[in-house]
């Protein structure tokens, strides 16, 4: 439901897809599962979209709402948080905390009209390299359909002025 809402809203504002634009996705990866899966994906040469930037974090429970909001304010098109499966968090409930925080940030993104669909969390284990690559492709396609984060060009303009 949320991707639909955000898409129609972003169409309402300005979904301009500049030629050659590739979604810029920031992937917060838990170092116990997702970072290993991402590394493995690279090692066995699984392809995932070039616009992906991996940020390794000791636990998804350490990702604060401010980190996610900051990424969007700076113009990142989409954020994927990749944590351990339920019951598999090395810090017991970090992934559950992350899920709750994401819920709130998604609601904020919907309320301001940026679209909660730009933020997603998936849970996988360190041996799931193909799943990791699939999730990266999926979110990239979701974001491609939503268009670029409208805050990105605006930020460049203001940075140029100041």
């Amino acid at each position, binding site marked *: 439901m949320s991707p639909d809402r955000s898409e129609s809203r972003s169409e309402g504002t300005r979904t301009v897809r500049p030629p050659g634009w590739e979604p810029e996705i920031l992937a917060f990866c838990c170092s116990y599962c997702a970072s290993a899966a991402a590394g493995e994906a690279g090692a066995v040469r699984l392809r995932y979209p070039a616009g992906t930037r991996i940020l390794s974090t000791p636990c998804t429970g350490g990702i*604060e709402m401010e980190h996610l909001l900051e990424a969007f*304010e700076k113009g990142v098109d989409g954020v994927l948080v990749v944590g351990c499966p339920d019951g598999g968090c090395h810090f017991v409930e970090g992934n559950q905390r992350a899920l709750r925080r994401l819920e709130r940030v998604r609601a904020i993104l919907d309320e301001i009209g*940026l679209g909660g669909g730009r933020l997603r969390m998936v849970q996988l284990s360190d041996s799931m390299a193909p799943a990791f690559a699939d999730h990266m492709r999926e979110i990239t396609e979701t974001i491609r359909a939503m268009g670029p984060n409208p*805050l990105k060009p*605006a930020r460049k303009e203001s940075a140029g002025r100041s």
Partner: protein
Amino acid sequence: MIVASPKSITELKSIIAGHRKVLFVGCGTCVTVCLAGGEREVGIMAYAMRMARRLDKNPVEISQVTIERQCDNEFLKDLAEPASGVEAIVSFGCGAGVQAIAERFPDKPVYAGLDTQFLGILEGQAVWTEKCLGCGSCMLAEFGGICPITRCAKRLLNGPCGGSLEDRCEVDPEKPCAWQLIYKRLQAIGQLDRLEEVVPPKDWSTAWYGGARRVVRRDHQV
């Protein structure tokens, strides 16, 4: 403590729509503990507001500061500098904090960023419940430490209304019947005989109904 909850982004956005430079002031006491108006919540709201306004092509500059207690003049002094260059202030304190800041800055618009709710406690993880209405003449001794004025939906002082279902209040089954709690508590502390006495109508003159109250302690004045 005083329990509050954040206003929606949409409401706050409309409140400050006409301003381009705004100071968000958090409070480090009650509203920090109830996760509504501390440094972190102020930061989250500032991100949301900046992004919302940029999407509206009406950008806003937001500065943030969180002081120890907004209801205390001693700490309000620290706001002089951050407030000097802004058009308006949003206080993320309780209603008392907002008004304290407004009194401190008589020539600046000061808005409430929170909805102040009640005097209460943290009941469970991220659940707060109301415990006291501040009636000005505490009767807890008579009711085993459970306040029927606040916690009985009908404010009954002489036993339950008769509508309770098991131990639930008939007005809202989500809540326990205050009188069930009072009975069990008086039983546990061996004071059930208190219920034999008829409690006369409460004298409400000590409560809010005569307008805002004042407490003066001459013994602490010089």
